């Protein structure tokens, strides 16, 4: 049948209109799907079945496609190693001599550290288990930076687990299924990582923007960072363990501080996925649940009126400041929840030396009396200034005002 005989051959205008209507419907549907996407949640439910299924399909395809390139790279490395063996041998000898010196330093430092830990009774974080995986696909556009790794839930990987290469932090897991997991890179525009500057201990948020060097935001203090400073994870928030190497600070062309990522030193093909969740994993939660409750706050309305004779002994009578099981020194303390309320403890450890206060006439003199008799330099936390307390009518506070307060 020729086109001239085809009755559908004259449907030019209706088809154009229909195509336009279909376009509008499809556009509205796409916008609705985009608005309903909950990628920012980064949890298992929000990752969704379509992504899970697609990752499961794409991982073996990407693995097969990357195999020729990987084998070629290994072959090239082998040939290069054969031809440059002599020069590499010389370089390695020099490096080995340097490393021997560092080994001696490391042994001495390890010995010192162990003694300090013993003296302080410091609890260190237990070693974190890891899973090894190979990267099979890589997206590196300006709007999304993520990779697929060929290890998934069968190895215990969960969303939020940090991912490292041999050189430094790469990103974290945002989606997991059987045999494959998706890694959100530090350079992704949606990535936020709490970091610290190794030299000054200043905190910042590493913010990806799709470029090769993510930004350092929310820096505080005067000159908290210099070019060349090492950047580590701070462990704040419990997303990452503290101290993972991230990179080196540089001043960007736009005048902002940026980070040259340590993981960019070499191609990321194999990664280590740290099976780390948060600090509750490394803390002894059973022990934390049996921590003694904090002492009552002196001066609280629920307390009975103080007996004058007991005021001097008030500080000494509350010695049972809860010694928290997990309140260890150092930033890597695995039990942040167990930090006791500082103010009641500080107020409670009052000395008896300055407690020769006359009998307070007012009905509620306990709070000023207790606060005013804080000893200098015996408490870890500075007490509240006496001027911040309500002015008591009793004469007792006048005689017990600390002259200088704690340093």
């Amino acid at each position, binding site marked *: 049948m020729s086109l001239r005989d085809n009755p559908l051959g004259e449907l030019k205008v209706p088809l154009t209109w229909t195509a336009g209507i279909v376009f509008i419907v499809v556009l509205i549907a*796409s916008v609705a799907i985009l608005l309903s996407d909950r990628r920012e949640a980064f949890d298992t439910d929000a990752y969704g079945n379509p992504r899970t299924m697609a990752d499961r399909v794409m991982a073996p395809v990407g693995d097969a496609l990357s195999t020729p390139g990987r084998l070629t790279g290994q072959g090239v490395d082998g040939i290069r190693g054969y031809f440059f063996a002599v020069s590499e041998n010389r370089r390695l000898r020099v490096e080995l001599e340097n490393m021997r010196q560092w080994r001696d330093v490391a042994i001495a430092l390890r010995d010192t550290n162990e003694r300090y830990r013993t003296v302080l009774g410091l609890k260190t974080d237990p070693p974190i288990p890891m899973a090894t995986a190979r990267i099979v696909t890589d997206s590196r556009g300006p709007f999304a930076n993520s990779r697929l790794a060929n290890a998934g839930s069968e190895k215990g990987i969960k969303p939020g687990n940090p991912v490292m290469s041999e050189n430094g932090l790469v990103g974290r897991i945002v989606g997991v299924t059987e045999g494959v997991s998706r890694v959100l890179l530090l350079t992704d525009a949606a990535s936020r990582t709490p970091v610290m500057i190794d030299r000054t201990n200043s905190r910042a948020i590493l913010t990806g923007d799709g470029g090769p060097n993510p930004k350092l935001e929310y820096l505080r203090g005067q000159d908290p960072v210099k070019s060349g400073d090492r950047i580590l994870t701070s462990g704040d928030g419990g997303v990452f363990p503290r101290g993972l190497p991230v990179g080196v600070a540089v001043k960007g062309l736009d005048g902002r501080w940026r980070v040259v990522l340590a993981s960019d030193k070499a191609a990321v093909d194999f990664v280590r996925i740290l099976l780390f969740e948060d600090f509750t994993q490394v803390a002894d939660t059973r022990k934390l649940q049996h921590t003694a409750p904090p002492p009552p706050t002196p001066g609280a309305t629920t307390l009975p009126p103080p007996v004058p004779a007991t005021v001097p002994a008030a500080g000494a009578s509350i010695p049972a400041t809860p010694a928290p099981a997990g309140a260890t020194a150092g930033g890597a303390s695995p039990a942040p929840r167990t930090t006791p309320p500082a103010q009641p403890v500080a107020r409670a450890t009052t000395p008896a030396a300055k407690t020769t206060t006359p009998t307070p006439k007012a009905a509620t003199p306990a709070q000023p009396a207790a606060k005013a008799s804080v000893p200098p330099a015996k408490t870890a936390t500075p007490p509240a200034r006496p001027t911040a307390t309500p002015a008591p009518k009793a004469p007792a506070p006048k005689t017990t005002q600390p002259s200088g307060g704690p340093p």
Partner: protein
Amino acid sequence: MSSGGARPLAPWRWLGVPMLYVIAATMVFAVPMRFWGLGLPEPVFALPVVFAWAVIRPSMLAPVGVMTMGFFLDLIWGSPIGFWAVCLLLPYGIVLGARSILAGQNQVMMWVWYGLSTALAIGAGYLFTMLDTQNAPYPASVGWQFLATVVLYPFADRLIDRFEDADVRFR
């Protein structure tokens, strides 16, 4: 086969096959490889096809194909679902509306039009990313992807040449 030119254009020829090419090329370029320390660029292979589809003829299936390719890009690149579907549909709609203006233009002008549609798609992506993450994407990376995509116009030109006159109803 003498009557082949008079037959209506089969959708799989001008929609299905190019879509498969796009999927294959995107998968190949998603391989984690480096050459002399540099990674492969990440062009949006779907854009030449989207531009060519809008120029060739209006179709009811083409917007669905555009949306499908957008979803595929979202799934492989890890962007929010619907992100690239919207980014691709916007230039498709604009070019489809301006189809009468584009008719008879020379190759250079068509390349300019293609560059404008690419800029629209990537500009929309820039805006959506800003709204989604409260964070502006790095301009150099955006420009790099724009350049890597603009140079793909010869593929769109080849597709247009092959199918523009395939259906006489839309000459």
